């Protein structure tokens, strides 16, 4: 009875919010959004700092912000501070999980599931393929959809595959920690270099190159690669914490 009552209450609230959004003349309905009235118009036309060059794929040279993928432009260039915060969130939660679960010496969780030889070898082959796709996604972050976060997670899922395929496999957690720390510090150092050399934190001080080229968009691919490595090692750290238990 209590469940039904709260369901009615909650759905009533949902209905009220929907009604109030519909009646609100400023809340543009689904689909009829006019980009020109929004901030993101200048992200598309790349004229935040008054860039006048028309944005032509393969033609435009040294635009204000290099990546062809506008979402990556926003994530890694226009609003790069959010991503720094973002990476810190993941860093803190992986550290928190390690603090909570991995206090002493750890050994693999005994799951009463012993994979046979075929699975162990097959997964080794598959590991290479998943790893390569992850790296591909990271490297082409500024051109095609994807980037640091999905690429890093793909690397982590390839390591997850090894965990599942072999029940006493453990990654070298210490080395992942150093990789994570180096990648993170490099990212912040790039930002600080931007601050001290070019007087804006996280500014894109390298040349942006031709729109759509592989080697274009200044520091964005570098930043995204660092993020990818960091996210990959953090998530594999989390996976390791979840799949191990205290040595009794």
């Amino acid at each position: 009875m209590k469940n039904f009552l709260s369901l009615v209450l909650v759905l009533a609230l949902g209905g009220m919010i929907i009604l109030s959004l519909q009646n609100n003349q400023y809340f543009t309905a689904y689909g009829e959004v006019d980009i020109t009235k929004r901030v993101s118009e200048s992200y598309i036309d790349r004229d935040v700092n008054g860039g006048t060059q028309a944005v032509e794929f393969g033609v435009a040279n040294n635009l204000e912000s290099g990546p062809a993928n506008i979402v990556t432009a926003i994530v890694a260039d226009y609003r790069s501070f959010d991503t720094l915060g973002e990476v810190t969130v993941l860093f803190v939660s992986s550290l928190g999980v390690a603090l909570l679960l991995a206090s002493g010496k750890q050994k693999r969780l005994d799951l009463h599931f012993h994979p046979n030889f075929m699975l162990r070898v097959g997964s080794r082959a598959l590991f290479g393929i998943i790893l390569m796709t992850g790296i591909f996604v990271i490297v082409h972050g500024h051109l095609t959809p994807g980037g640091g976060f999905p690429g890093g997670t793909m690397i982590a899922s390839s390591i997850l595959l090894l965990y599942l395929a072999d029940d006493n496999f453990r990654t070298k957690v210490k080395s992942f920690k150093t990789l994570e720390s180096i990648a993170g510090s490099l990212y912040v150092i790039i930002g600080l270099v931007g601050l001290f050399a070019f007087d804006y934190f996280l500014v894109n001080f390298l040349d942006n190159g031709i729109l759509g080229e592989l080697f274009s968009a200044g520091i964005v691919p570098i930043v995204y690669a660092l993020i990818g490595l960091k996210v990959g090692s953090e998530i594999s750290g989390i996976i390791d914490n979840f799949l191990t238990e205290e040595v009794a």
Partner: protein
Amino acid sequence: MASLEFLVIIALLGGVLAYLVGKLSKVVGASLTVLVSGFIFVSVAYFGLNGSLDASITYLPFVSFEATDLYLGTSFGILVTFIFFMVSFFNPYFVDKFKYPSLYSMFYLFSLAGVLGVFFTDDFLVLFFFFELVVWTSLFLIPLGKSKKAASWYYGFSAFGSFSLLFAIFVMRNTAGSFNINDGLSMVGGSDQILVFILLMVAAFAKLGAFPLHIWLPKVLGNSPDPVTSVFSGGLEKLGAFVAVMGLVKLAPVGPVIEAIDMALGQYLIAILGALTIVFGTLMAIRQDDAKKLIAYSSMSNGGYILVALTLLNDTSVSGALYHVLIHALASTAAFLAIGAVNRQTGTTKMSELGGMIHKMPVTYIVYLIAIISMAGIPPMGGFVSKWLIFQSVINEGMILIAIATFFGSIGSFLYVFRPLAALFLGQELPEFRKVIKEAPFFMLLPMIILSGLNIFTGVHPSVILQYINNVLAELGVTELGITTWTLSGNNGDLYPALIAVVFGVGVVIAFIIFIVLKKSRKVDLMDTYTAGNFVYTEELLHYSVDFYAPIERLYEKHINIMKDFYKGIAKKVQEFGSFVKYFFFTNKPEITVLWVVIVLGILLLWGDLL
């Protein structure tokens, strides 16, 4: 040319010094309080009387004093610093029994500084600053005595009082634009004036311990150490009287005028509450067994006299009220000091456990006798003059009910005031105290003697002080009292207090001669009862100090603590509300937050007609 700010700083630094010295030796620290309060009293009295207290400010930036034509503040200031000075004589003798002796002397001097600040300023914010300073410094003096709960009762009531005073201050500032007292009180008008009047009265009632807000007075005065009790009843209550004067006299009368007694409704209600205080105080005092609690209730009912007199706003009543403030301060401090001396020697103030102190402590007995004569209002002492003024004005205004209450109060004071005298001092000397007791040391007797001397002086030759009070009346804008050097002129006739005193003196001499000439009384052991023939069931039946007024008490026994239960009920309601809210909002399940988020969102969307 002592500057007021200099005195306040001396008091504060003196306090800190007393704390440091107190760390070395308790008694020296306490005697430092005597020196400092003495110096302050002398400078305030001397410079205050010839009006040359300067108000220049150098160190304390926010403070602004005003000393020139401020007779009201000066008169209160002199009185209260005098009481502080007199009571400080007792500090060295009592301080070694306290848990935190050096802290005691520090807070003693801090409250003295606070009192100084309150009376000599013309700025409301400064008045409130020192008012609150007195509240919290005297707060920590109370728990040194017997009861710990008394402190929270005291803080509760006086915080309620001072915060309503603060509210009134800000309401006045809205109309007057500045914190100045005089134009704040004069310029406030309309509905604000009623609000300000009520709030000032609440503050006065809370500080004076008058009827609705009186619960803390007996608890605090009864349970705190003796010097603190005397300072409270003599000095700190006068803050309430000061606020009452501001509220009733400086502020224009509030509410529609009642033709029958041509007095504003607001004043009339306060008069009724004052009368209730008198009656309630007297009734409660009659049934007390502890001498200190008894005197505490009597000072509560005297507070009622002051309130009633202040509401009548004619020359005899306001001068009577101000004079009664002086008299009550002197008499109750003397009484409390005497009881304190007895308490120090015997360790208890319960009337049923004491007796026959007169043999070993005759001077204390005489001091106590004079004090209660003045409190009861019997002619040669000051109490008679002030009560004469107050009764006259009440009858003249035609307020019969309140007059009856005041008469009941003074008759009642005969009843309960003489009981501690008989219980503590007269009667057979109790065996266990015979060897232990000796008279109080000289430095304890000195203030008591001074006080009783003043009690007599104010009764015999009041016109000196009444002359000064006339200046205060002039400042307050009330018609002055007709005084010649030896006579007071009331509404229907003059009073020659000196003549009455002389007649009483002659009477006393004659009585003394008869006592010497005729046969002495025979000393009788307590055990063999002297009643005629029949067997006495309980030996206390006729003992004057053990519930002698049992028949009267039985009349109102059942509903003694109506008010106490009322306040306890409030405290209980707050407690229940707290745990009720706690039950609703604080469970250890996460869904409670989401529930309230959904409910608040729903209400706000519905109510804010955002649909």
